[in-house]
């Protein structure tokens, strides 16, 4: 768990840097306190918290509870007045703050992109501070843009004001990840975008985290977001007092007290549905064809499987669009297949709720599932989702020891 491993591996190699390996480092808050001069009560009072390597921990609480203060003490934008913070094995409360921050990704609400710098310059900031050479920096920028699903050629030289809010936030995430830091701090990053974009960004964060395995500290006031994204949730009260620190499943099933119960709100059982992930259910095989393949062969395969539609993939196995058998019968049907902008796709890390929603919009009764690098994995059927929901419902009220997420 040495920090040099995490900061120096997987940099310029554009593919295959994933894997299930954990790149993050453990963070330990040991009795940290923030007391402002001339204030009676401490803003953050003697908080201790261990954040396991590679996990996403959500700090949730009402406004003014000190959750943001707590987070900003990790990168020392706010200097603690007491206690220690360990990242990995190292006590970071005494080292140079600027050096420390270059090892910690920082993503804020509204992205906070510098308007006078291009997208590429924004992303390249920390790598340049770390004095990477030019080639490595520009390769890394392109790699990160692809990682957050923005076309590098199209967006690299744009200025932030030329992007939508969601795109800006993607660039913000890319910038936070630029130097491949083991730890990522996210301060209500998706608070300023519309609900649909927010859900999409959340899905992408789940997918990214699946690939990258960072240690993420995520501040939000939205409990649903915490349930969706968190491996663990810390529910905070005034003074940053931790009322409950547990997995979402356990907090939903066994809120520690009335405060937590109030925060969890109604419909705790329904909320558990968004705990189910696509990767936890059985995927089915669809009839598959590749761009540039032989349409007759594809049609024959589909008929053999008893399907009316085939899903067309590009050379990198990314789903492009559904074609019906009639469409396939046309000559050269697979020669020039463009991506269907309305194609509904979910990720293996998406929640079952999202999968169900996508199905309701599409006319296929199934939804395509993609995995790493948006490559095709299979399809989920509506029956599968219904079965999973039944399952969750019957087990939800009494979960003594839910499976670790």
């Amino acid at each position, binding site marked *: 768990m040495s920090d040099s491993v995490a900061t120096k591996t997987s940099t310029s190699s554009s593919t295959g840097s994933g894997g299930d390996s954990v790149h993050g480092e453990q963070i330990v808050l040991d009795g940290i306190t923030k007391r402002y001069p001339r204030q009676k009560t401490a803003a953050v009072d003697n908080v201790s918290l261990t954040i396991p390597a590679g996990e996403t921990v959500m700090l949730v609480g009402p406004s003014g509870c000190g959750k943001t203060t707590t987070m900003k003490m990790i990168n020392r934008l706010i200097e603690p007045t007491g206690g220690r913070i360990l990242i990995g094995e190292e006590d970071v409360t005494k080292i140079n703050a*600027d*050096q420390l*921050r270059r090892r910690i990704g920082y993503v804020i609400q*509204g992205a906070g992109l510098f308007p006078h710098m291009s997208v590429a310059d924004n992303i390249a900031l*920390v790598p340049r501070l770390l004095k990477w050479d030019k080639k490595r920096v520009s390769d890394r920028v392109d790699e990160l843009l692809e990682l957050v699903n923005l076309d590098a050629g199209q967006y690299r030289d744009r200025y932030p004001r030329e992007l939508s809010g969601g795109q800006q936030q993607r660039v913000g995430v890319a910038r936070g990840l630029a130097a491949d830091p083991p730890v990522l701090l996210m301060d209500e990053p998706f608070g300023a975008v519309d609900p649909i974009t927010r859900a999409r960004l959340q899905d992408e964060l789940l997918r990214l985290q699946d690939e990258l395995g960072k240690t993420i500290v995520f501040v939000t006031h939205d409990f649903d977001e915490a349930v969706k994204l968190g491996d663990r949730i810390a529910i905070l009260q005034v003074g940053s007092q931790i009322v409950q620190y547990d997995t979402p499943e356990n907090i939903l099933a066994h809120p520690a007290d009335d405060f937590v119960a109030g925060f969890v709100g109604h419909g705790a059982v329904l909320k558990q549905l968004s705990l189910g992930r696509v990767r936890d259910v059985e995927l089915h095989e669809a009839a598959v064809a590749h761009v540039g393949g032989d349409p007759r062969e594809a049609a024959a395969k589909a008929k053999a499987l008893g399907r009316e539609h085939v899903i067309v993939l590009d050379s990198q196995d990314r789903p492009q669009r559904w074609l019906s058998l009639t469409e396939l019968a046309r000559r050269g049907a697979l020669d020039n297949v463009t991506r269907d902008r309305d194609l509904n796709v979910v990720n293996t890390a998406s929640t079952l709720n999202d999968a169900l929603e996508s199905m309701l919009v599409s006319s296929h009764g199934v939804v395509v599932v993609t995995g790493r690098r948006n490559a095709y994995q299979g399809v989920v059927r509506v029956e599968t989702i219904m079965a999973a929901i039944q399952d969750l419902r019957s087990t939800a009220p009494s979960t003594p020891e839910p499976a670790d997420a």
Partner: protein
Amino acid sequence: MPDTAAAMDQPVSTNVSTDRPSRLRYVVQPVLCVVAVAAALIYVRVADVDESEQRSLGTSTLLTLLREHLVISLIATVLVSVIAIPLGVALTRGSLRRYSKPVITVAGFGQAAPAIGLIALGAAIFGIGRTGAVIALTVYGVLPIVANTVAGLDGVDVKLIEAARGMGMSAWSTLLRVELPLALAVIVAGVRTALVLIVGTAALATFTGAGGLGTLITTGITLQQNVTLVVGAILVAALALFIDWLARLLELVAAPKGV
């Protein structure tokens, strides 16, 4: 940048402006200057002027006066920029921030004092001639630049500064690479305001023997040469307008992309 606009609504900075003039202004303003100067010169040829008046309006005299005027103005502008921009930056840093209001107020005195008084004072302290005039003009130009530097830097979104620091940029590098570029338009507008003020006020420098186009006006008054007086007045006004136009062009070129 709405933040900047809001920050600029301070009563102290009435002559602080970042107004984006219409494109027409970029064309009309210089044309007006050229027409005014040409008209003045034609007037000299046509009007009934005696020999001494012709001498004071000769091309070589005009060019000398113009050169004197520009040299005084430019030295004062450079000096005031070198002094006032760092001062404005310092007034937005940490513990010095609380002095920004008092300093801007004191700088306002320089502005409120009659220009002729300042120039006389400069001559009284530093002697007759160019030095005194330049120093007086420098004092005169401090306010718009300090005020605009402070307003420009205060107008930078604190979230961006925090993002920069949070990513590991030092305070110095945040100032150079984030705050100053984003405040540049407002700061340059302040420099332009100061420059135009100084070019206009430099017409008074002639009273303390520093020369400049104002000499035409004083000569015109003392010798009752109306043509000289009118030509002098037109040239001073046209020069100020022309410099303003030039500075606005520079502002356009200097503006960071993407903002």
